[in-house]
């Protein structure tokens, strides 16, 4: 069971502080299902992205000035004068988008394969916490360059809190530290933007601890039963993750080097002007579905509650979907409702990118209705109505059945 290290220094340290044994345990003894597909690589990639964001962010903080008169200027100084400043900023700027792409795929994967179901509810909920913290961090980070979109995004989003009855206005004033978004707001946003990624890192640790309690779910959604069902993390999944890191970095570098402002908005290269709102303000693409939900509701408070609810409902997903079968592969009806849910998220995003006029209002209301119906109506009903396909007896059997030779 316990491993004996050849190197004496390693042995000496490990006896006093068993980091090498626990590393060895997680790498070699921790069983990982052997049938994971490439969708299981996105969690690891998201973790890597978090590290890239923290590293580039610390570097940017060395040059950035959180003051309304100098913030825009200091960002331009990073772009023009600081050695390699432009590459570091473009990594950080596009990295936020990449992080959300990875995490959205990670979340959809969890939803399709039922990774949130018992006994992984806490694992899932910690993931939702990470997602929520990412949203907050990304939003306040977008304020820091102090362009027009920064300023007006900050104004609009902080004003959401004014919808709260009685204390709303007081909360907004408290958030701003003044009577509009201004220097105190920028200062505290900078402080929080530096802090929150480390909070995320802490929650990621808990996420991994919870993951390693029962191990990864897998495309079949059945538990590992026999030794043949699992393989060690190292070298099999380390090399598989490394390969996808390469693929991902190529994708990422295309944006950094050849289209760095594609995912951003031109108005954010205009310095913030508290007296002029841009003609058409939109949040970053990764908030668009939630933005569409916000605008779909004609009531201010209603819109805010629904937008918050769209994230909050993810917390209780494990208790809304009561089907005993995890993987969507064996759920003939769920499959199609899930596909529609994903398409629906794109539709919401498309509505969020367009002004709330004409048919966009109707489409975004229908899409909002489906978003919530999926959780509150469809999943609970499917748990009762759907007849799942028969599950394979074990992971290894499903792999070797076609050729019918177990090793």
């Amino acid at each position, binding site marked *: 069971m316990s491993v004996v290290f050849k190197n004496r220094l390693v042995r000496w340290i490990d006896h006093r502080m068993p980091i090498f044994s626990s590393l060895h345990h997680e790498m070699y003894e921790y069983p990982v299902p052997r049938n994971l597909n490439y969708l299981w690589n996105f969690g690891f990639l998201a973790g890597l992205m978090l590290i890239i964001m923290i590293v580039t962010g610390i570097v940017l903080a060395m040059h950035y000035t959180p003051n309304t008169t100098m913030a825009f200027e200091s960002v331009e100084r990073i772009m023009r004068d600081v050695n390699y400043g432009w590459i570091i900023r473009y990594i950080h700027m596009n990295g936020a988008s990449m992080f959300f792409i990875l995490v959205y795929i990670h979340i959809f994967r969890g939803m399709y394969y039922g990774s949130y179901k018992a006994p992984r509810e806490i694992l899932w909920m910690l993931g939702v916490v990470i997602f929520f913290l990412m949203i907050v961090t990304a939003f306040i980070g977008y304020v820091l360059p102090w362009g027009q979109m920064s300023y007006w995004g900050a104004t609009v989003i902080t004003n959401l809190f004014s919808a709260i009855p009685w204390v709303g206005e007081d909360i907004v004033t408290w958030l701003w530290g003044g009577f509009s978004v201004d220097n105190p707001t920028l200062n505290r946003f900078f402080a929080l933007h530096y802090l929150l990624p480390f909070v995320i890192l802490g929650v990621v640790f808990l996420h991994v601890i919870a993951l390693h309690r029962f191990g990864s779910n897998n495309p079949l959604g059945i538990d590992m039963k026999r030794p043949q069902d699992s393989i060690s993390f190292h070298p099999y999944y380390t*090399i598989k993750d490394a390969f996808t890191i390469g693929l991902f970095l*190529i994708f990422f570098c295309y944006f950094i080097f050849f289209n760095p402002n594609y995912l951003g908005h031109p108005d954010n290269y205009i310095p913030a002007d508290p007296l002029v709102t841009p003609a058409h303000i939109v949040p970053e693409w990764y908030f668009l579905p939630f933005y569409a939900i916000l605008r779909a509701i004609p009531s201010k408070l209603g819109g805010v509650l629904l937008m918050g609810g769209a994230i909050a409902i993810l917390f209780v997903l494990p208790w809304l979907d009561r089907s005993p079968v995890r993987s969507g592969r064996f759920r003939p009806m769920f499959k199609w409702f899930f596909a529609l849910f994903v398409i629906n998220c794109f539709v919401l995003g498309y509505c969020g990118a367009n002004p709330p006029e004409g048919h966009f209002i109707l489409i975004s209301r229908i899409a909002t209705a489906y978003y919530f119906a999926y959780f509150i109506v469809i999943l609970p009903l499917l748990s009762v109505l759907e007849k799942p396909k028969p599950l394979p007896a074990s992971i290894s059997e499903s792999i070797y059945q076609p050729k019918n030779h177990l090793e």
Partner: protein
Amino acid sequence: MKLPSFLLKLAIVSALSLTTSATSVFGETTEIKIPQQEWGFTSLFGTFDRAAQQRGFQVFREVCSACHSISKLSYRNLTEIGFSTEQVKSIAAQDQVVDGPNDEGEMFERAALPSDRFKRPFANEQAARANNNGAYPPDLSLITKARPDGINYLYALLIGYQNPPSDIVVPDGRYYNHYFPGHQISMPSPLPSAGLVSYADGTEATIEQMAKDVTTFLAWAAEPEMEYRKKLGVQVIFFLTVLTILLYLAKRRIWARLK
């Protein structure tokens, strides 16, 4: 297995469709179609034409800089578009910038140095508005990045002055420009006639030529790192491709042990 890959494809297709309709998604509701020009430098490996940049700088200096600043740039940056250090020094020395306070506590004027930021035509926004019928000529350091499809937009705007259609009345101090959102712009045509500047290299200074040159100059001003960025990008992506292929082979080799 099938459904996830279907959804991934869907995501890719919708991302691509966003690419092609980017302006329609993020642009104005009343849309003005910006004609697309051929720019050598916008392609994947494209670089700026040094001569066009320098001509564009001349247009900027003799025409635009009467009202517009490029406050994020310093005179020293001009070495990047092919001016020598000596040329930059003499270009800078033509401008008087405010420095100080001196030992008597007074601000004073002196000839600009290469390390100075470009002189602004007006001391502040209020002064700029007071001299321009209440309109504020925006800083041009980032203009091609700060407008949707900025490079083509800028060019279109510069040549887009026309007589207004008969049903539109343009008030005093406003000018009809086909490509300006709302069509009524406070800036009079900056390039009203050919030959406004005389190019040292003998290029004929047509309106289109001047517009093209100054757009090239301002595109560089907004993204001075562009040439190096693309060059480095080619190297980085080539390296990553090699690395990814190696990792893929290593992955296959290691996983082959399981079969």
